[in-house]
């Protein structure tokens, strides 16, 4: 912390980090009040890509809103699909066949790996290392090919339906997925050698951007940000949904509370997702992929419903208020990075600009999901 910061009368200047800036990965804007290179105050300004999804939800039918869910967090779109269908299925009381649940889990976890890979590349890019980005994209490309074969989309998936999934997998899916897992397992040591064990990276991440457990609680931080602060909280374990209880996987938790801990959580999560996919493919039951009597028109009894899923960035919650009609009366989308970013201002205070950008990268921001 700069000595000068304590003197309130010291001259500061403001710089605009964004809305067009290489490190904000989109249209986030942060107004930084700087004292030299020390940040005196950081105030995120949101809304540059705000599309009012919640209003769209009110004016569309239940199913019509489904593609919107993929357009919030475009990196982990399937988890957003999942959160929405879970809520609506809970509201309308729709049962899901077991095969569909397994397919949901497999595709969501594949998508999670893709999301973490992209974050990994982009994060190292924020720190000035360009090459890992393209290695990560190379791997991610395989996932996108696999997901394309089953969902028909590469980024904005709209694969889930109320009561199941849209499409069954073909015969190539399982071998391709297992081959990809083998490939990624063989490449993870390379990533760790090239990036994780790099002394420059360690110096830039260790003890940078401390987020204490208590602060995470006050701000409602979730996901890898929270698990990097030593809290063992993962919706997949703590509030089991779908068929997650049937799989044996660990929740990586690091207690250092710094950017390195958040980095390590995500790196370890990729391995856990691979474990889940392997088990799910081995146990994949035969059967239908969508419930036979899937209702064409969803009727949810009037009332409040809530469901949350563990997306790559944290808890994605959907709160639905139904009035019994064929569209939601009120649709609240609780996006994880919105809460995670809200603590940026408090943590960044007194940090140096390069460190603050390391912190911002470690929060794993996806701006369309913050702005919704």
């Amino acid at each position, binding site marked *: 912390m700069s000595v000068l910061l304590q003197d309130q009368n010291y001259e500061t200047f403001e710089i605009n980090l964004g809305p067009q800036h290489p490190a904000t990965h989109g249209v986030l804007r942060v107004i930084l009040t700087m004292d030299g290179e020390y940040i005196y105050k950081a105030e995120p300004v949101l809304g540059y890509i705000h599309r009012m999804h919640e209003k769209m939800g009110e*004016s569309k039918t239940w199913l019509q809103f489904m593609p919107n869910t993929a357009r919030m967090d475009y990196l982990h779109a399937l988890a957003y699909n999942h959160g929405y269908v879970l809520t609506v299925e809970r509201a309308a009381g729709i049962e899901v066949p077991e095969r569909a649940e397994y397919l949901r889990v497999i595709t969501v976890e594949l998508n999670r790996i893709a999301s973490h890979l992209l974050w990994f590349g982009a994060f190292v890019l924020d720190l000035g290392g360009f090459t890992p980005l393209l290695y990560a994209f190379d791997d991610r490309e395989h996932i996108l090919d696999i997901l394309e074969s089953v969902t028909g989309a590469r980024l904005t998936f709209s694969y889930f339906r109320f009561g199941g999934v849209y499409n069954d997998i073909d015969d190539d899916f399982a071998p391709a997925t297992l081959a990809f897992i083998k490939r990624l397992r063989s490449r993870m040591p390379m990533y760790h050698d090239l990036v994780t064990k790099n002394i420059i990276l360690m110096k830039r991440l260790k003890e940078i951007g401390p987020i204490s457990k208590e602060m995470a609680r006050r701000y409602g931080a979730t996901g890898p940000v929270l698990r990097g602060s030593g809290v063992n909280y993962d919706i997949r374990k703590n509030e089991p949904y779908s068929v997650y209880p049937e799989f044996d996987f660990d929740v990586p938790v690091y207690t250092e509370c710094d950017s390195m801990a958040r980095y390590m959580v995500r790196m370890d999560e990729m391995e856990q997702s691979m474990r889940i996919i392997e088990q799910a493919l081995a146990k994949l039951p035969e059967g239908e992929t969508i419930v036979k009597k899937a209702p064409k028109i969803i009727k949810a009894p009037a009332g409040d419903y809530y469901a949350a899923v563990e997306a790559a960035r944290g808890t994605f919650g959907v709160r639905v208020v139904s009035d019994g009609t064929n569209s939601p009366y009120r649709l*609240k989308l609780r996006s994880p990075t*919105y809460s995670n970013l809200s603590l940026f201002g408090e943590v960044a205070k007194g940090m140096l600009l390069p460190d603050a950008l390391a912190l911002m990268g470690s929060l794993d921001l996806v701006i369309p999901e913050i702005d919704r």
Partner: protein
Amino acid sequence: MILDNVKKAMAALEPINMAETDYAAKGFHLDVQVAPEQVMQAAEVLNEELFTLEAVTGVDLLTFAKAAKKPAKKTEEEAEPQEETEPEEKSAPQMEVVYDFSHWDELCRVVIRARIPRDTPEIPTISEVYSGANWHERETHDFFGIKFTGHPDLKPLLLPEDADFHPLLKDFVA
């Protein structure tokens, strides 16, 4: 365990309504409706029990009861609230502010709700207890025009800085 503690502590506040809900059907365990001036105390109760704030949001109840009474098969155009005649017999329309809380150690989701009159929407802020509520309340103010008294900085967050409209109000016309 935690749920019992919360129930006990909440009962001391004498909430307007408190009901344990079926988690499997609803997605939360406890539904508490408090008076608007009590939200701060309710938040403090949950803070004591180490709950974390998931979200704050609002619901405009202007057309809710009416729509809920109607048969469910009406078309979409009708569902849109524009230019519908106000039901005269109803009492003054209300808005609801909803707070979602969850707990890290035990599966326990608590919903706090408070109803406020629609024409003078004011409710105390809880951002002093839960710092994260700052942004959620700003967002709710953007969308519903609900004024959170005591909020440090209630300027638009997601909407443009000169926005004077509140898009999630049911009588909002773009």
